[in-house]
């Protein structure tokens, strides 16, 4: 799928991270592996600190905290936006939509389109495409794209495949129309035949949670997880990313009639720093143009890693002027998507902690 948008922009960005920080070294004893191997993993994958919610914190808690902050700062008015698009895989409940819960908790206006989208690693891209489409409607002045996940609550403490890298976070991105006609190019691809590479097997309607699905099972490598837990086939995901992402980036550059060298920065979803560096090698992109420091500082918060990487690495540049950015998200679904667009100047770009 190819998309082209014009007269669209990102005008503000806020990220919300749980203040609660954990350290990979402290957690190593939870895993059934020699310490030396875990230290090697830390070095290669870039596992270090990650931010996780403490207790039963939900997506709507992080988002309400962030929106109240924006209202208080005066960066966003309570009635300034007409659509709230929430991309999450960890809703407060199956029903109602978490976006409705957020509208209710904040007492927002009723003339508001609330939409939940179930997407993960490509969730920022899917949300961006959806938000830009909604701006076709004259009655929609601004769209709030909200990415939020608290997936650490679904990861086994004894799973060295997933626990060291998992992170919780939320981001609020303001999308609106722009007077400038700088086209935005995007593409997106789907392959549901490989959906089992990243999944939480139990807890939905296909396999409801039960005492049986809560039983911890050991895999061939010595990880313990239950069917209620998130599971990831790491090497399948690695191969998928290395094979599918480079041609997708080629395609989006071709759509724009531009070259790799003309892009200022490549802001990609960050599963771990190893995967990104291998991707950069394959695409012949210098490492300093492709930040890979999110997992080591905050963990992988699925759809929030792209906005986090923007706020953490580009804040000063995009507050001052514009940056030609190539964005890309890939993972759960499987879904992979990319976009080429100018980012900035933004009205605000801030990172805050949730207490």
């Amino acid at each position, binding site marked *: 799928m190819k998309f082209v948008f014009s007269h669209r922009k990102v005008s503000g960005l806020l990220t919300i991270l749980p203040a609660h920080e954990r350290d990979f070294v402290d957690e190593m004893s939870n895993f059934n592996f020699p310490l030396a191997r875990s230290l090697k993993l830390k070095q290669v994958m870039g596992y270090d600190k990650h931010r996780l919610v403490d207790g039963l914190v939900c997506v709507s808690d992080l988002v309400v905290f962030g929106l109240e902050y924006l209202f208080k700062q005066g960066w966003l008015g309570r009635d300034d936006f007409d659509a709230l698009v929430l991309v999450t895989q960890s809703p407060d409940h199956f029903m109602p939509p978490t976006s409705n819960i957020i509208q209710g908790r904040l007492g927002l206006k009723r003339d508001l389109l609330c939409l939940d989208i179930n997407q993960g690693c490509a969730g920022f891209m899917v949300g961006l495409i959806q938000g830009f489409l909604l701006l076709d409607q004259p009655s929609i002045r601004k769209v709030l794209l909200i990415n939020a996940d608290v997936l650490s609550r679904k990861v086994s403490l004894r799973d060295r495949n997933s626990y060291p890298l998992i992170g919780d976070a939320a981001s609020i991105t303001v999308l609106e129309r722009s007077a400038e006609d700088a086209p935005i190019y995007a593409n997106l691809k789907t392959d549901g035949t490989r959906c089992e590479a990243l999944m939480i097997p139990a807890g939905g309607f296909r396999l409801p949670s039960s005492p049986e699905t809560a039983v911890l099972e050991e895999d061939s490598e010595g990880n313990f997880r239950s069917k209620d837990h998130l599971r990831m086939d790491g090497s399948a995901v690695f*191969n998928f990313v290395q094979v599918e992402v480079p041609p997708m980036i080629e395609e989006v550059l071709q759509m724009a009639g531009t070259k790799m060298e003309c892009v200022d920065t490549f802001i990609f979803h960050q599963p771990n720093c190893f995967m990104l560096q291998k991707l950069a090698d394959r695409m012949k992109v210098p490492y300093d143009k492709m930040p890979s420091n999110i997992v080591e500082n905050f963990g992988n918060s699925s759809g929030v890693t792209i906005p986090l990487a923007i706020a953490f690495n580009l804040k000063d540049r995009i507050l001052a002027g514009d940056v030609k950015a190539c964005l890309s998200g890939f993972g759960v679904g499987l879904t992979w998507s990319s976009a080429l667009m100018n980012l900035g100047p933004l009205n605000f770009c801030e990172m805050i902690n949730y207490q």
Partner: protein
Amino acid sequence: MKELLAELADILEVEELKPDTNFTDLPECDSLSLLSIIVAMDSRYGARLTASEIKQAGTGRLLHELVERRKK
């Protein structure tokens, strides 16, 4: 094959690897090592393999044969 064996030994952090040693039995052969082998076989020889193909090959000799067949 010598070069490939040296590469495997390096990844698995063992001094020497014999062509017929089943390296998947080594404690160092975890998911991280498999990932490193995938990358090495791809970047050095242009052979794209999956973790299960590498595990199935099991020895340096069979992995070498597989790489030769899959070389671009």
